[in-house]
């Protein structure tokens, strides 16, 4: 349990967030504390410096006596709280005035600044002298023209004392906010990562039990995780569909290979029989070759159809006039039609431009023509036409054969389907399924209807 908690993404996120939060608040407080202390110190400093300049002016006019008089006469409340000291050039105190609440020893502690370059740079130099935990001195030292030094000082609250309430407030508020951010963050992150846990649980179920029907119970909405879950479910659905198609194909294939393979085996066995006629044996071997060629074709077409249906068929699209494919198909089947005394009529009034895989679409059209010729009786007629409108392009092939019974209209597109009336015809029953798969790979459809006056009418539609 502890391990799981430690590994939990939600908890990790919450802790990381809290840590970042604490860091930011800490930095904010630090800056605030420093700025506040600085500005308070500056105020003290300005006060004593201002006074030091006043007193220095009085000293210049009236000497020590003038300064003393000013100190006594000035009734401003803050003057009484000031410490004033005059230091002569031989470093002895000439004059000292301390606030009444100061004790002598405190005065002794106030240092005399080292001279040197300071005078040249600044008129007044201020230092803070820590007195004890509670108090600091702020002392301004002002050099006088006669080489003496005037010091004006003041007792101020020390920085920790001044800012103690701020610190207290910060610790209180900060701790509360930190607790809230850890708790609330954990809760929020836990809720937000719920879809992830569901995904992982579903994946585990599929892996452990092989239950391919398992789906992630999806949250509604359009958030990233909801989208992820939906996409994952779609992926699982599509995978399941592919597996099903594959399974069906294999079942059909096994079934349909059995008959020709048995025949092949029988023929070969016959050729092997002792005392057989060598000429007959050769014939049987040639039959074996023919039969295996047929099997190979069957296999290739089935693979083509599976690829087209499964979306794995690569289309090399180009722009061309659909009429060129129809004319080519008519050319290919001209002799076959002539042989069956069937009139092949082309109705191609206008150019119909399509964007498609010319070879694949040509295969589909050839198969439709082949199919029509097969089912049209001698003396019949097959019309090939193209048309186009806003919805897309269409290839329509109409014959005046027996037509397709309504009950069989969807079945004829099934793989290896052969109607009872077509069992005598050559072929595997794959032409129409391939044509349909090709049309659908292009985003189009093939439908079959009854032609006016009987016969079948197949329409291959391609979207714009």
């Amino acid at each position, binding site marked *: 349990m502890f391990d799981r908690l430690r590994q939990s993404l939600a908890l990790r996120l919450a802790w990381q967030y809290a840590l970042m939060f604490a860091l930011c608040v800490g930095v904010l407080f630090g800056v605030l504390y420093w700025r506040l202390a600085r500005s308070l110190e500056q105020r003290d400093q300005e006060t004593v410096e201002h006074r030091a300049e006043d007193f220095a002016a009085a000293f210049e006019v009236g000497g020590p006596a003038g300064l003393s008089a000013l100190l006594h006469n000035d009734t401003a409340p803050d003057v009484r709280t000031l410490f004033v000291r005059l230091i002569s050039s031989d470093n002895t105190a000439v004059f000292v005035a301390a606030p009444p609440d100061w004790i002598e020893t405190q005065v002794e502690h106030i240092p005399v600044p080292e001279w040197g370059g300071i005078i040249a740079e600044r008129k007044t130099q201020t230092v803070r002298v820590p007195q004890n935990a509670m108090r600091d001195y702020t002392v301004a030292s002002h050099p006088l023209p006669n080489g003496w030094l005037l010091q004006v000082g003041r007792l101020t609250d020390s920085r920790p004392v001044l800012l103690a309430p701020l610190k207290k407030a910060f610790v209180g508020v900060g701790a509360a906010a930190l607790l809230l951010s850890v708790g609330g963050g954990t809760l929020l992150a836990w809720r937000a990562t719920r879809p992830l846990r569901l995904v992982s649980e579903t994946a585990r179920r599929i892996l452990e039990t092989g239950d391919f029907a398992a789906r992630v119970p999806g949250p509604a909405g359009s958030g990233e995780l909801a989208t992820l879950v939906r996409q994952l479910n779609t992926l699982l659905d599509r995978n399941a569909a592919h597996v099903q198609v594959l399974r069906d194909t294999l079942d059909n294939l096994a079934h349909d290979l059995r008959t020709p393979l048995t025949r092949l085996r029988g023929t070969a066995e016959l050729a092997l029989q002792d005392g057989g006629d060598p000429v007959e044996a050769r*014939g049987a*071997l*040639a*039959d*074996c*070759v*023919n039969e*295996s*060629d047929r099997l*190979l*074709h069957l296999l*290739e*077409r089935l693979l083509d159809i599976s690829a087209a249906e499964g979306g794995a068929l*690569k289309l*090399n699209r180009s722009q061309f006039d659909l009429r060129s494919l129809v004319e080519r198909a008519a050319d*290919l*089947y*001209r*002799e*076959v039609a002539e*042989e069956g005394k069937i009139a092949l009529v082309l109705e191609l009034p206008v150019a119909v431009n399509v964007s498609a895989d010319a*070879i694949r679409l040509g*295969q589909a059209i*050839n198969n439709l023509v*082949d199919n029509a010729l097969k089912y049209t009786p001698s003396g019949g007629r097959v019309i090939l036409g193209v048309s186009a409108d806003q919805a897309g392009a269409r290839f329509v092939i109409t014959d005046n054969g027996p037509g397709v019974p309504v009950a069989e209209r969807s079945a004829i597109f099934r793989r290896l389907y052969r109607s009872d009336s077509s069992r005598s015809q*050559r072929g595997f029953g794959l*032409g129409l399924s391939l044509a349909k798969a090709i049309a659908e790979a292009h985003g189009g459809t093939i439908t079959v209807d009854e032609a006016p006056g009987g016969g079948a009418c197949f329409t291959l539609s391609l979207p714009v």
Partner: protein
Amino acid sequence: MRVLVVEDDAKIASFIVQGFKQSGFAVDHADDGEAGLALAETTDYDAAVVDIMLPRLDGLSLVRRLRAARRPIPVLFLSAKSSVDDRVRGLEIGGDDYLTKPFSFSELLARVQALIRRSSRSPEATKLVSGDVTVDLVSREVMCAGQPVILQPREFSLLAFLLRHAGRPVSKTMILENVWDYSFDPQTNVVDVVVSRLRTKIDPDRKRLETVRGVGYIFRPHV
């Protein structure tokens, strides 16, 4: 006639090599692409049969390098894949023909012979004669056993193609490629239909145009 066979599958290679030897060819065999390229660069061959999937150097790269080195040997690609893309790619690179496995040796032989004849660049005669059948390619007149015969355009092309390969079997696929210009098998019986029509016109006594079971057709000169 010397042929190079680059094929890594020992069984297929021996079946091709044996076949060529029996048909009177000298044959060299390499079982990987680099060995094949080395042979092709150093020896003069009349034709090469190259598998596309080869160890060390694939067949397409081999031919690309041969062509870059300006070796004009006619090349026939063998491939286990029947996709149109592969075929187009093979021919673009500089291959001259393409055959999908499994194939019959007669078909391979017929195609290789056609390649050799094409590359020897002898200007094609305007008249094809085989036994008692004469085809004039310019005036499009056909004579059979001393009698003029009227042929439809497709029958004429088929007869001319058969005469060019007289005495050797040709497959239905080769006929579709050369007479109908279909690079893939449209899986129809059109070839059978046109062959049977041609038969009734030039071979009513069935002595010239024979069906070779398991292979295709052969035109035999008949006097």
